[in-house]
């Protein structure tokens, strides 16, 4: 699980640093990243928070298509961690 989480964190970092992505979506990606790195909460809570932030981003009409695909991919991996 740790390695998978690390991979997800790396994918999120790429979105957060991508200048072609709108600022609000980058901010949400950063918040999701911070939530995953927040060791004061249990993994399930961290993952749930990150998933909900990314769900919000994927509903944003301004999100680029390729970024939406990346976000869905990340959400799918995160949800598999919850199961």
């Amino acid at each position, binding site marked *: 699980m740790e390695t998978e989480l690390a991979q997800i964190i790396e994918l999120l970092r790429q979105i957060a640093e991508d200048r072609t992505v709108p600022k609000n979506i980058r901010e949400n990606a950063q918040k999701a990243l911070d939530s995953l790195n927040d060791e004061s*909460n*249990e993994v*399930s*809570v961290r*993952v*749930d*928070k990150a*998933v*909900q932030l990314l769900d919000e981003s994927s509903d944003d009409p301004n999100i680029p298509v390729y970024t939406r695909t990346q976000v869905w991919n990340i959400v799918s991996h995160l949800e598999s961690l*919850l199961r």
Partner: protein
Amino acid sequence: MDIKNFVNKLTGKVTIKRGEGAKEEFIELEPDEMKKKAAKIFVKYFIITDFGDIKTVIDSLREGYTIVIMKIKPLKDKDMNELKRAISKIKRTVEAIDGEIVGIDEDWIVAVPNFVEVYKGEIPSGEEGATTEIQEE
């Protein structure tokens, strides 16, 4: 009782005499540590009028040690689809914290953390032998 010793007792200082001619020494006793406040469990209620209102609900549940009671009637009367989305989102968070979400009434929902159990018993109605189950959502 010697007045000096009495004062020392009040201030928490203790005088030690080590025999004739010895200098008086003081040992300061640390005041008692403030008793740590017992951890509290919160019960919070919310009136959900809009989808955005659930953000505070979810944040409260994630903090832990919180029982949340929500009145969903305003949102239910406004938009049923929004209500379903809202409850679905709350349900995901409740599952993540390993808690439980139960409908008390048509208009009220309670969400509890993992150390709380909601008793889903039966309430006897006025009619003899008939019972009414509490709805579970």
